[in-house]
């Protein structure tokens, strides 16, 4: 029985097929074929043999994400969403002037309110994480259209904190 797996790396999709042959696996990655002896001595660890070469791989699964540590490096792979549902970019999501948390952290202070006019570089939100303080500043002059956070709130990395309509956008 041949089984096929796909992984998303950036915009590229890579396909791996695995077929068992006795103690070994016939593995193809794209156009390349490998004969691999594989053993799973414990949860999350694989011993691999490819010719005279041995490799110890640690693999962890987290939802669709796969972490692989091998030969002194760590790799992160994603399995694609099974429904092939794709996020539409640029619509439905936050607007072009939205400001996201550059790190996960605690909102120390929100310095603006909806409707405020702001100047370029003006601090909007103060974030703190692991004792580091980060100031989220306006990238350009504009008006605050939406505030998504409040002081004391814990936010995730990439979470939208404030939305701004630029002056140039003509609002």
């Amino acid at each position, binding site marked *: 029985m041949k089984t096929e797996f796909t992984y998303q790396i950036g915009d590229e999709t890579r396909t791996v097929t695995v077929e068992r042959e006795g103690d070994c696996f016939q593995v193809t990655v794209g156009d390349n074929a490998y004969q691999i002896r594989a053993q799973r001595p414990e949860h*999350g660890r694989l011993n691999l043999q490819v010719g005279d070469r041995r490799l110890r791989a*640690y693999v962890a699964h987290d939802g669709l994400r796969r972490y692989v*540590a091998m030969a002194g490096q760590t790799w992160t792979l994603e399995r694609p969403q099974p429904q092939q549902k794709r996020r539409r970019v640029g619509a439905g999501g936050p607007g072009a002037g939205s400001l996201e948390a550059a790190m996960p952290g605690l909102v120390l202070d929100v310095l603006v309110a909806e409707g405020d006019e702001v100047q370029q570089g003006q601090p909007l939100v103060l974030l703190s994480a692991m004792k580091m303080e980060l100031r989220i500043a306006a990238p350009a002059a504009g008006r605050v259209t939406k505030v998504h956070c409040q002081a004391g709130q814990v936010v995730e*990395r990439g979470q939208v904190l404030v939305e701004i309509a630029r002056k140039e956008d003509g609002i």
Partner: protein
Amino acid sequence: MFNKILIANRGEVAVRIIRACQELGIRTVAVYSDADADALHTMLADESVRIGPPPPSQSYLCGDCILEVARRLGCDALHPGYGFLSENAGFAESVLGAGLAWIGPSPAAMRTMGSKTSARATMQAAGVPIVPGYQESQDDADLLVAAGRIGFPVLVKATAGGGGKGMRIVDAPAELPAALQSARREARNAFGDARIYLEKLIRSPRHIEFQVFGDAHGNAIHLFERECSIQRRHQKIVEETPSPLLDADLRRRMGEAALAAVRAVGYVNAGTLEFLVDPADRSFYFLEMNTRLQVEHPITEQVTGVDLVKLQIQVAAGQPIPFTQAQVGQRRHAIECRIYAEDPANGFMPSVGKVLRAVEPVGPGVRVDAGVTTGDEVTVHYDPMIAKLIVLGEDRADAMRKMDWALSHYVLLGLVTNISFLRAVINHEVFRRGEAATDFVDRFFADWLPPANEPPDLVLAAAALSELLEGAAVGATPVAVGGKAQGDPYSPWQHLGGYRVGQD
């Protein structure tokens, strides 16, 4: 000797102290915030007591809460670790007032040497050169005038601080007010003390510090230097000893300056004298004193053979330092790398999450002081340091190779870490020559990106084989009581939901 010690800290330093106590036959009490209910230090101590919610101000900085635990459980000493309350003289006084031993210097010495203001005055009086600076006023206008006199760029630093917290470089007068405000806020948040001071910025200096120790019997020793020039955001990330910069003469002169400080205040217990060394003329300036155990203390332990935590406990119990200056020496070469959950390719932003798998390198001359293990969470609430990796090599070249080996064998899955960045540092030509100064990271790694991200075929093969061979374990494994299912839609077990066991 003490019967029971409360460790008023968390993470790897709490673990380090608990282990030292266990080897000395002393019982231990850990304290923890809600964020650390299952953290490593709470698992290792004999007793573990919750002290409050995650914010440090309500838990690890809450001296009263901690002292109450120490009293209730009958502790006879308290070890503050580093950070948090370790340099808070008022807390040390409360501990002593409650009849417990404080494993650290006297509150008076903490006040004198812990405050940069009076430490500088003390050192100046002892004839040790100090970096030009200004600390006479907290008023913004005064500070602006002083900064002009010192000459830009100036450094804004927290009076109560350490570890780069509250530190800002200011290049021009116009930037000063915002920097002062931000530094004060960070200082207040980190140390409960908003005071700041100014200092002249020396270009490309080396950061070299001396470990010192005093006891209650008037003995004072130093345990040689540590070079900590490799920093990012003014926090040390790689330390080593001996320093490749020092020769025997400079080492002797700096050691004497360090001992002058110890003698000037009758300093008891462990402390560190930090110096800036100008590589151009090898002149050195006293920077500040840390009146506590230092994060990077293990490299000193490796080259001197002295267990600094045990010595702290013994000295706090009134015992004399069991050796003289002449009996202690440096042997071989040690390097420490701090393993952080952070993204060096993205401004060293901290990353958080669950450590899905931690496999620490083992081998001769490799030591790992970890605060986090497989299954633990790294949260937003505290410092993102996961572990310290320390190697002892036969010489500097051997230590660098051993560190590279150890870093490449350190497995940490589930988080972004600085491991590949540290490998790049260790293998950088300037570091290898022993010439890296404190601006090393900014100069050579500003645009650093991890090596090519295209996974080799065998990595994809390993992932696919793990889908097959892990198979069952993925979706069906209940990760934590009360935790959410991890939700892999590919798992054949997914549809089973709950399960029953033990039908006997």
